[in-house]
């Protein structure tokens, strides 16, 4: 709080800043860069999937012998790209963008706070995250390459994998530590720093979403940390936590006492990784709820139901993890339990989606760019969610498990769902962050190209999966039954490369508008929540000219008798 009195240098203002807004921006630029790099890895893989065994044009010449001799990708390199794509996208891209950036920047603003509860801890979270990310990327330079046992790192394959896996574990421990610090900060900030009058029933949905997400991170991540430490010891200290007796690796028996269980890793991993799914989707739902209330000019349908459903989702997300393991030979009674909980958890997700759809009814919708993204989120996330149901039932999962159907399902949830919502959020809050607005035409070009191409990539995955194409295949044409659907792979690859080009309007528009965009007022969308009650951009280290007081709920749009169609939370 005393920083306001000191003269700030470039370093203390932009690099080692304690201001939640600067830390938020650092998270945004870093995580968007990681998203782009994780996406690029996939673009390389798509070449191999579309044209297996052919040299990669142009780029192939620059890849070293250990990755792609003569420009043709090695199977080991393909595996590294796959494992790193998943890890980077989830842990270094989407979560830091959805939680680290959006949460850091807008949660304090929406609750009227001057900063997070622990600014120094906040700064540490960012730097540990950046360090973890760089360590993760550096693993490509290890002998034997980066981690190559999938983003799930199943033992014993991951235990006997080359050294890149050790780097993966160390990077994960750093990322987990960063997330835990962040989670503690978000929870305490939400509990303690709400301004006067901002009761729990007046909190914006976005804040609720971030709060539940932080609780999930707090309870789920330590379990993966424990799992990672055990895997590290298995790799470097000669223990056998995940190694059964009598393992033979590369034709030679493994000199270990054995007795451990590979399934132990799967349980510890999925105990984190299922709540992680909700960590990916809840902030997106929060953003969509904000945009929809603003774009329809009416209160959200079922505010209490959405909040209740989010809390219920949070609790239930800890009771469904083993539906990822139906094929591990678990007891039927156990699989029934997880099948039932999985069906139950679909109810709150559907409830939230239904409330958001019903919110559109009777609204005088403003089709702004953020609103386009928010409306697109609804059916796209719907497809992602509904295609998950057959994976939650054991009879259908037996067939679909580890096919491209699964890949299609979670990419619909995370890409056309979460990433679309996050883009919407960037367009929505851009004027708040920089005091300028983005070009509307190029935003819409970005939207339409992105949404069409994303569907072009992910919809054929369902067709492939139903045709029996397994995931993680280096050469899809090596199996006869895949050849029939091979043309879809070519189509998907062109869509993926097109998707990269479709991001150019976004990137150019973003940086151009940041410096040269049209200047906007404090509240360009005529919104009601508190972040629009402070200047754009908000004042360094204090946000508001004068600490606001809250008098009403978050979505008081079109209140009968009020002079405008929005009634801000802080208006007396």
């Amino acid at each position, binding site marked *: 709080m005393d920083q306001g009195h000191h003269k700030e240098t470039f370093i203390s203002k932009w690099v080692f800043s304690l201001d939640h807004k600067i830390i938020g921006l650092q998270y945004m630029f870093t995580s968007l860069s990681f998203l782009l790099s994780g996406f690029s890895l996939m673009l390389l893989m798509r070449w191999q999937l579309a044209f297996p065994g052919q040299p990669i044009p142009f780029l192939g010449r620059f890849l070293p012998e250990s990755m792609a001799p003569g420009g043709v990708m090695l199977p080991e390199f393909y595996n590294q790209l796959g494992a790193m794509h998943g890890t980077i996208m989830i842990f270094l891209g989407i979560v830091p963008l959805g939680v680290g950036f959006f949460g850091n920047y807008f949660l304090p603003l929406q609750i009227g706070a001057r900063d997070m509860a622990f600014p120094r801890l906040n700064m540490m979270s960012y730097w540990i995250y950046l360090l973890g990310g760089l360590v993760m990327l550096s693993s490509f330079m290890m002998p034997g390459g980066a981690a190559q046992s999938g983003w799930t790192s199943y033992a014993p394959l991951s235990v006997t994998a080359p050294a890149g896996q050790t780097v993966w574990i160390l990077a994960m421990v750093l990322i987990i530590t960063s997330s835990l610090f962040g989670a503690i900060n978000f929870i305490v900030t939400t509990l*303690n720093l*709400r301004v006067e009058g901002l009761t729990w029933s007046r909190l914006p949905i976005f804040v609720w979403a971030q709060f539940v997400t932080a609780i999930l991170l707090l309870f789920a991540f330590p379990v993966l940390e424990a799992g990672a430490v055990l895997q590290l010891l298995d790799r470097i200290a000669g223990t056998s936590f995940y190694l059964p007796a009598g393992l033979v690796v590369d034709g030679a028996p493994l000199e270990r*006492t054995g007795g451990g269980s590979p399934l132990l890793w799967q349980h510890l991993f999925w105990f984190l990784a299922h709540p992680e799914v909700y960590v990916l989707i809840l902030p997106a739902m929060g953003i969509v709820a904000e945009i929809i209330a603003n774009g329809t000019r009416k209160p959200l349908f079922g505010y209490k139901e959405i909040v209740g459903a989010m809390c219920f989702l949070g609790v239930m997300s800890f009771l469904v993890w083993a539906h990822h393991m139906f094929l591990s030979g678990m007891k039927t009674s156990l699989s029934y339990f997880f099948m039932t909980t999985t069906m139950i958890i679909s109810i709150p997700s559907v409830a939230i989606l239904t409330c958001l759809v019903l919110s559109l009814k009777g609204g005088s919708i403003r089709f702004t760019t953020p609103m386009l993204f928010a409306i697109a989120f609804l059916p796209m996330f719907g497809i992602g969610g509904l295609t998950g149901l057959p994976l939650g039932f054991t009879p259908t999962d037996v067939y679909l498990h580890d096919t491209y159907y699964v890949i299609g399902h979670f990419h619909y949830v995370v890409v056309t769902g979460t990433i679309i919502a996050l883009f919407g959020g960037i367009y929505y809050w851009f004027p708040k962050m920089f005091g300028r607005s983005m070009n509307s035409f190029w935003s819409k070009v970005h939207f339409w190209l992105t949404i069409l191409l994303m569907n072009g990539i992910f919809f054929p995955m369902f067709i492939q999966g139903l045709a029996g194409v397994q995931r993680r295949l280096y050469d899809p044409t090596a199996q006869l039954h895949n050849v029939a659907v091979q043309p879809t792979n070519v189509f998907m690859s062109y869509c993926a490369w097109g998707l990269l080009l479709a991001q150019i309007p976004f990137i150019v528009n973003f940086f151009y508008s940041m410096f040269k965009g049209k200047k906007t007022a404090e509240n360009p969308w005529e919104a009601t929540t508190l972040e629009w009650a402070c200047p754009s951009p908000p004042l360094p280290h204090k946000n508001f000219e004068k600490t606001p007081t809250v008098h009403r709920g978050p979505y008081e749009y079109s209140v009968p008798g009020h002079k405008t169609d929005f009634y801000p939370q802080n208006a007396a």
Partner: protein
Amino acid sequence: MMMEETATGIPSGKLGIWMFLASEVMLFGAFISSYVILRTGSPLFEIPLREMLGIPLATLNTFILITSSVTMVLALDSIQKNNQKGLVGFLAATVVLGFAFLGIKAFEYHHKWAEGITLSSGLFGSFYYTLTGLHALHVIGGILFNLYILRNGMKGIYSNDHHERVEYAGLYWHFVDLVWVILFPILYLL
């Protein structure tokens, strides 16, 4: 320094430390469940003879750690009554007892390693060193936290209406103690 007003009325630092301890419960919970699952489920889980475990020494160590929790409570109690000397004395005792615990632990490690219970000798050894090692790291963390409070206490920074950090250090120290009270029976007595 005035405490800032908070929406819940609880200081942010205190909520923060409770949240941190909640995540620690999950961390130790995951390790301990893994141990329980493999100990009850793996046919190759060999439990060493009771004589090899050195139960008397571990019992003494348990006693030392519980005593250190008592001195920690007395330290907090002293400062609540504005007794600066009491705070410093009892905190110093807590730190000394913490070091004593680590010393005995080191001797135990040495002894067990010589007897052939090592990190890679079998599942019991692996879990024994992992669980107690992680706990020992937490003890070291707690000692550092207590030393920091002790240094401030010797400067006379704390008083009866300003001693939140003494309480936070105490919460953490009791947690570390509690973890040992769970580890001791499941590693030595069962």
